[in-house]
């Protein structure tokens, strides 16, 4: 049994009387310990697909199955609270809170068992992601884009979930920063056994992911890369 199974998921946007079909009975599977990239042109439906995986929206037909259980049955709120962490292109941090506080917001919301000292956990996590103590205590609107995205990653990890979803996480970052973030994702998949699914335009990410799909005309197709991913030591 796969970690995540997408079964014949269909999706359309209702625009007045007309329906704009985005996903045509998409079926695919995702496993833990793997770093996935989903490529697609702008407007191809990448964000829409991620919204179904993250239960921020429901498929019009078909289902998303998490460890054998339909996420509709788990309950969207419950699923988001306890099963996944999500990273947005626009970071989506709470601007008047510090980095550490942003991480701790997620920790206080989840029902998952967490270590007893949440402050220490938050600082350690941020440190691991590359945000030192001084930056951790800064309100996030005083951090750079790359730093903010790291905070968002730390927040996604803080709830001790196995599924990490990211929508264009490096869209606003320069190449160097992008590479560092990609490296974090690889580590999360390979060292921490998480299932990391990143939706992107970026060829760089596609290059380093374990498995790549391409979203085209409502279908998710395997993507043939020119070369095998570069294996880091």
């Amino acid at each position, binding site marked *: 049994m796969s970690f995540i199974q997408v079964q014949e998921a269909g999706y359309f946007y209702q625009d007045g009387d007309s329906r704009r079909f985005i996903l045509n009975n998409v079926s695919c599977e995702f496993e833990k310990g793997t770093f996935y990239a989903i490529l697609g042109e702008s407007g191809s439906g990448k964000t829409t697909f991620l919204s179904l995986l993250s239960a921020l929206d429901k498929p019009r037909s078909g289902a998303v199955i998490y460890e054998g259980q339909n996420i509709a049955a788990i309950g969207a709120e419950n699923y988001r609270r306890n099963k996944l962490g999500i990273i947005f292109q626009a970071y989506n941090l709470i601007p008047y809170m510090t980095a550490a506080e942003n991480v701790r917001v997620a920790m*206080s919301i*989840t029902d998952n068992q967490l270590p007893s000292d949440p402050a220490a956990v938050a600082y350690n996590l941020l440190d691991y992601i590359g945000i030192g103590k001084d930056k951790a205590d800064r309100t996030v609107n005083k951090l750079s884009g790359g730093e903010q995205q790291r905070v968002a990653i730390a927040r996604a990890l803080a709830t001790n979930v196995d599924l990490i979803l990211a929508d264009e996480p490096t869209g606003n970052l320069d190449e160097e920063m992008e590479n560092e973030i990609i490296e974090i994702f690889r580590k999360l998949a390979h060292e921490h056994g998480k299932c990391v699914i990143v939706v992107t335009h970026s060829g760089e990410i596609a290059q380093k992911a374990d498995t790549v799909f391409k979203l085209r005309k409502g279908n998710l197709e395997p993507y043939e890369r020119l070369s095998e991913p570069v294996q880091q030591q």
Partner: protein
Amino acid sequence: MNFVKRGITSVIRKPGKTVILLLIVFVLGNVISFAVSIGQAVDNAENALRQRVGVAAMLEADWQTLDEVSQSTGEYPEPGVLTPETMKKIGALPYVKDFDYTIDFGLQSKKLKRFYVREENRPISEDGLEYYNLKGVNDPEIVDLKENKIKLLPGQGRTFNKQEMESLTYVALVSQKLAEINNLSVGSKFQLDNVIYDYSDIEARDGMSTSAEADGGMKVFASQTYEFEVIGIFEPVEQKKSSGNNNGMDDEYLTEEAQNRIYVPASVGEASAEYNYEQSVKMDPETFKDLSKEDLRYYQNLYILNDSRDIEKFREEALALAPDYYMVTDTAKAFDQIAAPMKSIQSIANIVLIGAAAAAIIILTLLVTLFLRDRRHEIGIYLSLGERKLKIVSQILLEVAAIAMVGIVLSLFSGNLVSGGISKTMLNNEIVARAEEQEEQQSGGSFTTYTSTLDWMGYGNNLSDEDLTGAYRVSLDLRTVLLFFAVGIGTVVVSTLVPIIYVLRLNPKKILM
């Protein structure tokens, strides 16, 4: 960072919004506190005053209706007789604290000197004949005494005992003034005459004449002298102002009426009425043959209610028991008249309260919704993290409530403080305005002077405008505080309803993706 800590963080880290909300709640809270304080002060004053006045009521023939009926039908209807049985039945109504039906009758004397406030009030009379109203009470303890309309002077006697009530005994309570003038003290005796005049030749005389002038010319048909023993000396408690509007003229008569009233057991009145009846039948059998001796007894009824708010229920039930063409007059009206300035302040306060609460709901709803629109991104984040909507709503309620609570508490004190001074001035202005209005009406001739039977009985208004202003005091009592918090918190809660619906309808996908 649970929702409580989040709320606190938000309130502290966004001081601009906190201060705006606080200021608005404070300003509106002041208006509400102002209005609630006045409303409560009026209620408190009303309760205190009502307790002090109590309410007295009586049934009497409704002459106005009788006149109207007679004018439209051409026949003057006969009002039924209010019998002692009916009066007792009415006295058994649950609203009645105390009651009596007294037999009121008149006797005269050439020896006993009446009390007059001013010498000019004394009628010109050659033979010094004076008339007295006697009150034959059925309640030996005397309702007037229990109701504090008269005071028994300390060490100066007692009320009637059982034996005096049951067997015909000529004992009396007289006022201190009457006692002074006539050198009476407890144990002294005085005499009064029951005189039946022969009026069979009165038609022969030219026109009507006042009794004082007629005495000389009128022939005595029969007479009886009763010797009373003084068993107690009382002092009438001063009435402040009769309920009717007058220029102090009636007030003097009311004082004289009270000072010259003599209390006796009801049996004395009955005996006197019986003598009248017997002699009248002898004198004019034609007129009196259809009448019984009971018909010559004139009863005065008086009911003291537990609570003046019961007056309408009492009126309804008493009239149902009474014969046709009776009405209930009461002192509640007098109270209403004196309390009117206060009541008008209260109705202004009520309008202000409703207006301020409505304005507060609208303003706070808009303000909180506006603030939340600004925070939709933040709320979207909580939703995307799977936060329960109940907790998000709780956080918002907590933030608004915490800020509002500070504003409410501050405004409770300041609004209350301010309302004390302002409403006193409003009340005084209102009293002056009303007095002027009455004066105008009087000089315009549209206001009729009238003194009610209850005034004559000593149950007139004993409240003055000073009593009103004295009883009116804005304070921060428990009821005021509770009512203010109820209104304040209620307003805040209602004001968050729309914002909460707004939050519940937010879609995190649309906000964040």
